[in-house]
């Protein structure tokens, strides 16, 4: 990895892009906040999720499972399973970012889809770090502020169903899944997983159908060969 320093102009350009992604992504913390209180969590619990978990799909999954009547345990397990992709991102980014000690401990919290997308294509460590931190930190701040505002708004709205917030959760999951559906195998896995989950809804406690669908991923991963071209998130739009 070349060690050359970053020119002020390059640095400013990367920061500008990163902040743009940060604003766009952070804003949808409003929808998380609103959906979370609609699922029955308190404002404090909602904010704790955004601060501590800080990975959107896992947070939506946690409150989604609870909203469907699942136990906090199955919600937590689903969130953890979805959080495993951040481990893969970290494995690929570690040689590029090259942080150690306290900096690595702090940087880890903002290792998410968007900070990965905005740093993994950079040619140097210096540029990757600017993209990673510019995106990660701006999303962290805005996501948490937006979560709080959404939770406050959601808790003063009354019945969430009359605002369609229950429909918003499914749409949020679909939007998170959408970029991965350009690949045929992923489409088949998604279809099979949805079918398995719906098939056991009538015979299992809430939360279990989603966890059972992870078995489809296991089976497909063992039985197929080719790598996944959509494995990494592209730059968010």
């Amino acid at each position, binding site marked *: 990895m070349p060690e050359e320093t970053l020119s002020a102009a390059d640095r400013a350009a990367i920061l500008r892009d990163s902040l743009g992604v940060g604003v*766009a*992504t952070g804003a*949808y913390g409003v929808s998380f906040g609103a959906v979370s209180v609609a699922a029955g969590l308190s404002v404090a*619990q909602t904010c*704790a999720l955004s601060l*501590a*978990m*800080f*990975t959107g799909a*896992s947070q939506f*999954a*946690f409150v989604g499972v609870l909203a469907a009547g699942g136990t*906090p345990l199955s*919600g*937590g397990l689903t*969130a*953890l*399973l979805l*959080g495993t*992709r*951040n*481990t*893969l*991102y*970290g*494995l690929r980014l*570690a040689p590029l970012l090259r*942080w150690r000690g306290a900096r*690595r401990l702090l940087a*880890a*919290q903002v*290792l998410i889809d968007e900070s990965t997308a905005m740093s993994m294509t950079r040619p140097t460590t210096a540029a990757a770090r600017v993209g990673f931190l510019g995106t990660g930190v701006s999303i962290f701040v805005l996501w948490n502020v937006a979560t709080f505002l959404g939770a406050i708004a959601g808790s003063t709205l009354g019945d969430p169903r009359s*605002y*369609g917030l229950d*429909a*918003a959760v*499914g*749409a949020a*999951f*679909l939007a998170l*899944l959408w970029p*991965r559906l350009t690949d045929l195998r*992923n489409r088949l*896995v*998604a*279809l099979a*997983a*949805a079918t*398995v*989950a719906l098939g056991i*809804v*009538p015979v299992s406690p*809430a939360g279990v*159908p989603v966890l059972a*669908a*992870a078995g489809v*991923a296991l089976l*497909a991963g063992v039985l197929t060969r080719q790598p996944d071209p959509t*494995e990494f998130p592209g730059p968010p*739009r």
Partner: protein
Amino acid sequence: MTWAAILLAGAGCYLLKLAGLSVPPRVLQRPVAERVADLIPVALLAALVAVQVFAQGRHLVLDARAAGLAVAVGLLVLRAPFLVVVFGAALTAALLRL
């Protein structure tokens, strides 16, 4: 119980991120492990969409949420931003319930 799950799952998600930045890369260089890990988000998100939209407790139902999802698909095809997709689906379901 909910608080415990929030804090434990939150700590777990943090450790998953930190592990990626800390563990030697060869740990996940077994292709099967890598493929499974790649496919888990696809399977879980698809299952979450299905359950969130078509399940009510232990019953399968077709209601305003399905119309919301259909609108979300249309908006995604049109490359609408995340917030537009999410609130478009909510608005559709809300209007149908008036």
